[in-house]
C-alpha cells in the first residue's frame, strides 16, 4: 500500500510498465488514493473526537500541543491531514474545528479488502499520540496491507528501475512484507534465489503464506528470523557455504525497523564485497499522510522524511546515490564501501 505514493519514480516509462504488470491503471490508483485519504480522515477524526483529543486541539496552538505529547511527529501528521481535509483550520497558528468529514465510500475492491476491520485500530491513535506507544502488530492486518496489486507494482518498479534481472544473483530482503515481496519477485523473475528475513514471531506466517501458494524453502528460497536492523548479519550466518547475496533490496523496510541506520548498515554488511544495496522508500509528505498514519496503526514506525532518511544514511556511514526521487518516494543505490 505504501506504493500508492510512488507515482513518477524512475520516470514515466518504467512506472507505466510496472503499473501494467500489476494489472493497474493510473485512474484506479488515483481513485484508490482519494478513497484511502477520505477513509483515514474520517476515522482519525472519529478517534480524536471519541478520545477527547479533538477538544484539547481546538483553540490551542500546535506548538503547545506538540510539547504536551510523546509522539509529536504523529500529531503533526494527524493535524496536517485534518487541515488538508478542511476538518481543522489554523488561524494565526491557533487550531479550530471546521467541519465533520464525510463518511467514506469505497469502490476499489482491493483497497476495501486491505482496510477491512482496521477502523477498530484507530481507537489507539490518541493513546499513541499521548504516550508514544504504538499498537502491536496484527499479522492478519499487515498481510492484508500487502495482499493486493500494489505490492506487485512496488516490486515491479524496483526490478525494472534498479535493473534487477533473473541473473541478478541472490537477493536479500530484510523485510519481506510477510512474504508478499517474495511472491511478487517470483512472479516477475522466476526462480531467483531469495533470502528473506521474517520478523521474529512471524516467520511461521511468512512460511505458510508462501507454502499455501506452492513456494517452499529450498535451494532458491531461505526464510530466517530477523528484524530488518539485523537481517544482513543474520543472512551472513545463514549463507555460510553458499556465500552472501549479491543484492540487498529494502522495499519500504525502514518504517518496520527500530533503527534505520542499523537496517542500512546491516544490509550493506549482508551482501558480498562489491554487492549492491537498493532502497525503495516511500517518504513522509503531505501526500502520503494517510499511509503514514495507517503504517503506525499496523505496528510500524512513521515513514521517514527525506531529511530523516538522509540523516540515517549518514549515520550508517555509507555512500549513496539517488537513482530517482519524487516528493513522496525515493529510490537509492547504496554503495557498499564505507565512507
Amino acid at each position: 500500500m505504501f506504493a500508492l505514493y510512488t507515482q513518477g519514480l524512475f520516470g514515466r516509462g518504467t512506472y507505466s510498465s510496472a503499473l501494467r504488470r500489476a494489472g493497474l491503471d493510473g485512474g484506479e490508483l488515483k481513485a484508490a488514493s482519494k478513497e484511502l485519504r477520505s477513509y483515514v480522515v474520517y476515522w482519525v477524526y472519529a478517534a480524536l473526537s471519541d478520545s477527547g483529543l479533538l477538544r484539547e486541539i481546538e483553540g490551542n496552538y500546535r506548538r503547545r500541543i506538540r510539547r504536551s505529547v510523546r509522539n509529536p511527529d504523529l500529531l503533526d501528521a494527524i493535524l496536517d491531514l485534518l487541515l488538508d481535509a478542511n476538518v481543522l483550520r489554523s488561524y494565526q497558528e491557533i487550531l479550530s474545528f471546521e467541519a465533520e468529514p464525510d463518511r467514506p465510500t469505497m469502490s476499489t475492491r482491493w483497497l476495501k479488502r486491505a482496510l477491512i476491520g482496521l477502523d477498530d485500530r484507530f481507537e489507539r491513535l490518541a493513546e499513541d499520540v499521548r504516550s508514544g506507544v504504538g499498537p502491536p502488530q496484527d499479522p492478519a492486518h499487515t498481510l492484508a496491507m500487502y495482499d493486493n496489486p500494489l505490492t506487485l507494482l512496488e516490486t515491479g518498479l524496483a526490478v525494472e528501475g534498479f535493473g534487477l534481472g533473473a541473473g541478478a544473483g541472490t537477493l536479500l530482503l530484510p523485510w519481506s512484507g510477510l512474504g508478499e515481496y517474495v511472491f511478487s519477485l517470483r512472479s516477475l523473475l522466476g526462480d531467483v534465489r531469495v533470502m528473506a528475513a521474517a520478523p521474529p514471531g512471524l516467520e511461521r506466517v511468512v512460511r505458510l503464506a508462501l507454502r499455501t501458494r506452492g513456494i517452499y524453502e529450498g535451494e532458491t528460497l531461505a526464510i530466517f528470523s530477523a528484524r530488518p536492523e539485523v537481517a544482513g548479519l543474520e543472512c551472513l550466518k545463514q549463507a555460510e557455504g553458499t556465500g552472501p547475496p549479491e543484492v540487498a533490496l529494502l522495499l519500504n523496510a525502514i518504517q518496520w525497523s527500530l533503527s534505520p541506520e542499523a537496517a542500512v548498515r546491516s544490509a550493506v554488511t549482508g551482501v558480498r564485497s562489491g554487492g549492491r544495496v537498493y532502497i525503495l522508500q516511500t517518504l513522509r509528505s503531505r501526500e502520503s499522510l494517510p499511509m503514514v498514519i495507517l503504517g503506525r496503526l499496523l505496528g510500524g514506525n512513521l515513514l521517514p522524511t527525506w531529511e530523516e532518511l538522509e540523516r540515517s544514511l549518514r549515520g550508517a556511514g555509507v555512500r549513496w546515490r539517488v537513482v530517482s526521487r519524487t516528493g513522496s518516494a525515493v529510490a537509492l543505490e547504496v554503495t557498499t564501501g564505507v565512507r
Partner: protein
Amino acid sequence: MRRVRCPKCGRVHEIPPDHPDGRFFLPCGEDHDLVIWVSGGMVREVDVAESVFAKVGFELIPERAPLTPSWVDMDRVRALLSGRVRPSSEDIDVLMLLEELGVVRRKARAVT
C-alpha cells in the same frame, strides 16, 4: 514423485520431488496422519500418528473471516471445517496459516 505407503492402512501417498527437508505430516485415514521425515531428498522415516485435525478441529472466527488472504478458497475452508471433505497436506497448511492470522481457532481452545 516419491511414493510412501501408510504402515497402518496401506494407502499410498505421493511426495513431490522438490519437497523441502524436514519432518511434516500428511493426513491419511479418518483417524490418523503420517509423520514423514525427508532428508537429503530421500524419505527417511514414516510414522503413524493420531490425526490432529480429527482430534482438535478448527472453527471460523466470523468477525475475522474477511481477513482471509485473497488466495485462500473460503468455500473449501468451510467444507473442511464442517468435515465435509478430508484435508490434504495443503489444506492443513492453509488452516495453520488461518490459525496464525486469527481467522480460525482450535475448538479445544475455544471451549476452555
